[in-house]
C-alpha cells in the first residue's frame, strides 16, 4: 500500500473480541488517524473495511484475531501484551506497570525501564474479571454499559458478590434483585469483585509505582476509583485507553522498519 504523502505512515491494528482498533502514526510516533469499530461476526470483513479507510506503508497486527489477519494480509504480528506495554509506556515513559482489561482477557504487565516486558499475568480461559463479565452483569441489572460504572460509583455501599464465575455471579445477582436489594449496590459489588481479581494479578507482577490502566474497562470511572483505593497506587489513564494496543502495534511497526 502506498501513501499519498512523502512521510512514511505506520499502522497498528488491534483485533479484539469486542472491537477492532486501528491507529496510524508517523515516523516520530505521532498519531495521525484512529478508528474503532465493533468486531461483529466476521472480524476480517470489519478489519478490511477499517484499513480501507486509511493509507499506510507498514502494518502490524495484534489482538486475538492477529493470526487470522496475518494469514489474510501477510502482516507481522505482536501479542497484545507487548503491544499494550509499548502503547502505555510511550504515553507514560515512567510507567513500569500496565493493567489491561479488555473484552475477553485481562492482564497485568510489569516493564523494564526500557519499556520491555519483564513479567506478565493473564486470566485463564473463562471470562471472570474481564469486560465481558461487566457487560453481562450490566445487562442482568438492566444498566446501559456506558452508565454502569457511574451508577456503581453512586452507591453508598458494596453488596458482596461471592462468585467470580460469570454464570454463578449472574444467578447470584438475579437472586439479589429478587430480594429487593439496591441495583447500584449490587453493581458496586460486582465492580469490587473484578478489582479484587485485577489487584491480585497486579500484585503478582509489581508492588509499587504508578499503574497505567488500558483497555475498554479503563473508561469505567468506578473501576478506576476502586483500583486506586484498593492498591493505594497512582492510576494513569491513556488519552484513549482502548487504543493502547493498536497504538503500540503501530509504534512497533515503525520500529521494525529496518
Amino acid at each position, binding site marked *: 500500500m502506498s501513501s499519498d504523502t512523502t512521510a512514511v505512515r505506520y499502522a497498528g491494528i488491534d483485533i479484539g473480541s469486542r472491537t477492532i482498533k486501528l491507529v496510524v502514526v508517523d515516523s516520530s510516533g505521532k498519531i495521525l488517524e484512529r478508528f474503532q469499530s465493533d468486531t461483529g461476526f466476521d472480524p476480517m470483513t470489519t478489519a478490511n473495511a477499517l484499513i480501507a479507510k486509511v493509507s499506510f506503508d507498514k502494518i502490524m497486527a495484534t489482538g486475538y484475531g492477529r493470526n487470522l489477519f496475518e494469514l489474510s494480509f501477510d502482516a507481522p504480528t505482536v*501479542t*497484545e*501484551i*507487548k503491544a499494550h506495554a509499548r502503547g502505555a509506556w510511550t504515553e507514560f515513559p515512567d510507567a513500569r506497570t500496565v493493567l489491561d482489561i479488555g473484552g475477553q482477557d485481562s492482564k497485568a504487565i510489569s516493564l523494564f525501564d526500557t519499556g520491555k*516486558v519483564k*513479567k*506478565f499475568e*493473564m486470566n*485463564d*480461559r473463562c471470562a471472570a474479571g474481564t469486560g465481558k463479565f461487566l457487560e453481562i452483569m450490566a445487562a442482568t441489572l438492566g444498566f446501559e454499559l456506558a452508565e454502569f460504572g457511574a451508577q456503581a460509583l453512586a452507591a453508598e455501599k458494596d453488596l458482596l458478590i461471592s462468585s467470580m464465575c460469570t454464570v454463578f455471579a449472574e444467578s447470584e445477582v438475579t437472586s439479589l434483585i429478587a430480594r429487593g436489594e439496591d441495583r447500584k449496590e449490587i453493581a458496586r459489588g460486582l465492580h469490587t469483585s473484578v478489582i479484587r481479581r485485577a489487584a491480585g494479578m497486579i500484585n503478582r507482577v509489581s508492588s509499587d509505582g504508578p499503574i497505567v490502566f488500558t483497555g475498554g474497562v479503563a473508561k469505567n470511572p468506578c473501576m478506576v476509583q476502586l483500583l486506586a483505593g484498593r492498591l493505594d497506587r497512582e492510576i494513569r489513564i491513556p488519552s484513549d485507553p482502548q487504543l493502547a494496543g493498536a497504538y503500540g502495534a503501530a509504534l512497533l511497526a515503525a520500529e521494525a522498519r529496518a
Partner: protein
Amino acid sequence: MTTDYTSMWQELGLDLAGHDALLNVLGTAYTDIYLSQKNRPEGMGYFDFVMSEVHGLRIKELMDEKAAGRKIIGSYCVFVPEEIVLAANATLVGLCSGADFAMEKVEQLLPRNTCALIKSSFGFKIGKVCPYLESADMIVGENTCDGKKKAYETLGTLVDNLYVMDLPQTKTDQTRDLLKAEYMKFKTAVEELTGVAVTPESLKSAIDVVNAKRAAIHRLSALRKADPAPISGLDALLANQVFFYDNPARFTESVNKICDELETRIQEKTGAFPAGAPRILVSGCPQAVPNWKLHMIVETAGAVIVGEESCVGERGTRNLTADTGTTVDEMMDAIVDRYFQVDCAIFTPNPQRLDHIQEMVTAYNAQGVIHYGLQFCQPYLMESIPVEKALEEKNIPCLRVETDYGMEDAGQLKTRVEAFIEQLR
C-alpha cells in the same frame, strides 16, 4: 499402517470402533505436528516408523514375547524399576496416556477435577483402546500423589492384575529402607509372575541394558546444548516418550544412530531452528504420548525447547544405576540409590528439583523456563510458585502454564507463550 492387525486387536479385547477413532486422531495429530516440521534429522524416520506402528508392530512383538513365555508389565511411573522387571524375564512398558478418551464414563468414577493424566489412564481402560494395557500381565500402580494413589483403589476394581507399590514421601535413611523393602517385595512379585528368579547375572545384565538406554538418551540430550539446536524439542520429546515402550536394545541403537547424525549436523551448523532462536526449558508434569501440545505451541511460535525437566525427560532418565554390586542384594541397593534420587514433586521437601532446574538452565543455555502443570495436579502446581520465584531471583524469566489435554485454551496459551518468547528476544 501396512499390515492389518485387526484380529490381534480383537483377540486383545479392544473396542475396535473406539480404537479406530483413537488411531485416527493420533495419526492426524502426528502428521500435523510432527511431519510438518522443517529441517528434521533423517534419523527421526525411525521414530516416525515406531509411532506409525505403536499399536501394530510393537504390540505384535509383545504378543510374540508372550507366546514365548515372557510376561508384560505395565507401569504408570518412573519409580517402577525396569532393571528388576528385565532381570526376571519380563518386559516393562509405560502406560501413562496423554489423550482424553471416554471422559463421560471416566467422570462416573473419578471427580471431574482430576488431572488429565489420571483421567486418561482410566479412559483408555474403560474405553478398551490401549493394547499395552490389555496385553499386560501385571499393572503396577504406585502410591505417589494423592490423585494417583486413590485412583488405584478404583482402578483395582477395573483390572484383575493391579499391583500397588508404596513409595516414601520424604528422603531419609529410614524412608530409603522403606523403598528398598518395597523394591524387594516387587522383585518377589515379579518373580512369582514370571516363575523366573532374579540372579546376580540376570540383574547385572538388566542394569547394563537399562543404563545403556539411559546413556543414549543422555547423549541425545547433551547434543541439544548446541546452537543452532540440531533437533527440535518435539522430536526429542518423542524420543523420551518412546523410551517407555520400545524394545530397549533397539531403542538404544536407534538413538545412538540419531546422535551420530546430530553430531554431523552440529559440525555443519545445521539446525532444526535458526541459530539464535530463543531457547526454552520445559519443567514440570510428565508429558505422555500423544501429549505434544505445549511443545507444539512453543515451537510453532519460533522458539526451541532444549530440555525437559520431567519424568518424560531428564528427571526420569538422568542417573545411571551404579554397576558396582556383585550380589543381588548389593545390586538392589544400587538400584534403590539410583531411584531414590528421582526428584518427583510428591517428595517433601524437594530442593533437589529446584537445583536440577537451575543446572539445566545453565547447561542447555536456556533463556527462560516454562513450568508445565496439568490442571488439578497439586504437587507440581504447588511447586511452580517457589520455582518461579527462585528463577526470577536469578533473572531467569519463567512462565507458569496450567493446562490439560483439551484444545479449548490453545488460543490463550498461544498468546501467553508468544508474549513470553517476545520477552526473551
